[in-house]
């Protein structure tokens, strides 16, 4: 497919609006992405024509919905190159997926004194579930440190692993710095000790094609809303052998085969892990979003996003008083920066008035901020629909910010 940025921007209605009478420059894509019209239409269409409770009904609408829902599961399996669709569990988001694993894997496999390894580069969603598990089970939480340029210090991993290590949970891409971690190597090391690995893929999936078979990860988690799908939908990929052994996370309708008050027999995979009425409308829209991404192509996405990353980085570094936090060798289109003596909040508020949406603060990665001894940063994060003109607007506004705050 040819990459026609003008045509692509027309696909996203939210991009074509003014904010404070200025054209919106949306540079907060790591927080959530805007939705193409086809995704919005999929939701509208679902609720206008198909809406029905799935899996339970013999009637037409229910069968249509079930079919579309299960087709999505198949497509997600293909998208991730999973062995089969039983390995795909729909959740409400990446956080939900990680909590599911921490709770269910933890119930079965973590005992007092067992060790869990995460990294110092994690989002709170990949820290707190493990802390809860640690506290529940009297386990130990160990942290792989990061290097000064913002990479997970893989060489420290071997020192942390002991016979008590039961799981390693790390992110594929850092949401605050953009670091692409060498998860393949980490997984290899872990597997050489027979330790399973969970990958928090929230920030990878919109930018990098993910092949769970090649990675050989045990768990891979992501959120729909960060890959152009609606909120309220997430994915957990897990190797079948783990899902078979793990107890269910939640109890409720359709995750069971048979219920008496004494004993309940759980349904087979993947249903065992999907209690309650699923967000079928959201899941079906996720299918559209993934199709849209594949249609544009990860290579085109990378090309455009790299141009944006490189250009913005160069222009920012022309300012003596701007420092980019995190300089890993491989990164996605995220730039975290600070302006000397200026508070990130002030910078964000003023940029906002120029129509520019950025994120400021700790980005739910307080330990990363602690490492750099910063209260927070300004973060810009590009999607393929951003433009060089938007970078010019940003640079213009940064000049204004500096005038106002000095």
């Amino acid at each position, binding site marked *: 497919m040819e990459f026609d940025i003008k045509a692509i921007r027309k696909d996203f209605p939210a991009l074509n609006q003014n904010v404070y009478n200025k054209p919106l420059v949306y540079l907060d894509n790591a927080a959530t992405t805007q939705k193409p019209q086809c995704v919005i239409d999929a939701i509208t269409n679902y609720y206008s024509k198909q809406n029905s409770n*799935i*899996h*339970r*009904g*013999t009637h*037409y609408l*229910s*069968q*249509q919905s*079930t*079919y579309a829902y*299960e087709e999505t599961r198949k497509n997600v399996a293909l998208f991730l190159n999973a062995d089969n669709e039983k390995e795909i569990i729909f959740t409400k988001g990446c956080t939900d997926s990680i909590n599911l694993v921490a709770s269910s894997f933890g119930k079965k496999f973590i005992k007092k004194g067992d060790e869990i390894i995460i990294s110092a580069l994690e989002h709170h969603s990949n820290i707190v579930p493990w802390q809860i598990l640690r506290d529940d089970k009297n386990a130990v939480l160990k942290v792989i440190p990061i290097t000064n340029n913002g990479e997970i210090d893989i060489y420290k991993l071997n020192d942390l692993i002991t016979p008590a290590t039961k799981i390693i949970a790390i992110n594929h891409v850092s949401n605050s710095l953009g670091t692409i971690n060498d998860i393949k190597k980490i997984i290899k090391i872990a597997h050489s000790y027979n330790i399973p690995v969970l990958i928090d893929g929230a920030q990878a999936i919109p930018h990098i094609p993910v092949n769970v078979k090649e990675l050989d990860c045990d768990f891979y988690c992501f959120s729909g809303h960060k890959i152009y799908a609606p909120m309220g939908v997430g994915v957990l990929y897990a190797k079948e052998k783990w899902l078979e052994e793990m107890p269910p996370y939640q109890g409720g309708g*359709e995750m069971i*085969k048979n219920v008496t008050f004494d004993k309940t027999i759980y*349904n*087979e995979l993947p*249903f065992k892990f999907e209690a309650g009425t699923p967000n079928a409308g959201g899941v079906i829209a996720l299918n559209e979003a993934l199709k849209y991404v594949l249609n544009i192509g990860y290579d085109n996405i990378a090309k455009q996003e790299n141009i944006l990353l490189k250009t913005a980085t160069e222009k920012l570094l022309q300012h003596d008083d701007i420092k980019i936090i995190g300089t890993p060798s491989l990164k996605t289109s995220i730039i975290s920066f600070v302006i000397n003596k200026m508070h990130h909040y002030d910078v964000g508020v003023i940029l906002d008035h120029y129509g520019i949406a950025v994120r400021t603060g700790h980005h739910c990665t307080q330990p990363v901020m602690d490492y750099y001894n910063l209260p927070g940063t300004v973060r810009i994060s590009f999607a393929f629909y951003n433009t060089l003109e938007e970078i010019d607007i940003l640079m213009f506004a940064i000049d204004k910010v500096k005038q106002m705050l000095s």
Partner: protein
Amino acid sequence: MSIPEKEKQLIAEFAQYDDWADKYAHLIDLGRKLIKYDENYRNDKYLISGCQSRVWLHAFLDENNKMIMEADSDSEITKGIISLLVWLYSGESPDDILAANENFINEIGLKEHLSPTRSNGLASMLKQIKLYALVFKTKIQQNNNNNG
């Protein structure tokens, strides 16, 4: 008749009916003609799970290494569908059964029974039949090895 030939005949048979109601009437009729299910096999061991209605299925290998099936259901429609499967596959070799697919259901005009709802038994029934076929195939191979 081979399985594909039987499928063709079935498709032709159902093609006579334009109306869904006539199709279902015929399906129900076929179910009613299924030979009486052996009560020894009407228990949980032979129950196929994943159906809203109950389906019992029981199979064995005859002296010619063909798979013989008997089945029953408490639902008339499900019984009709299982009777199609019995007619198609019973008496065939495990290999042929393993090679078969469920497309004929679509062509018969009973597509709605193909959808992957858990309340729908067709997928579960086919899975169970293929499981039987696989078990018998392995058994035949073992016998051959032992004899060879």
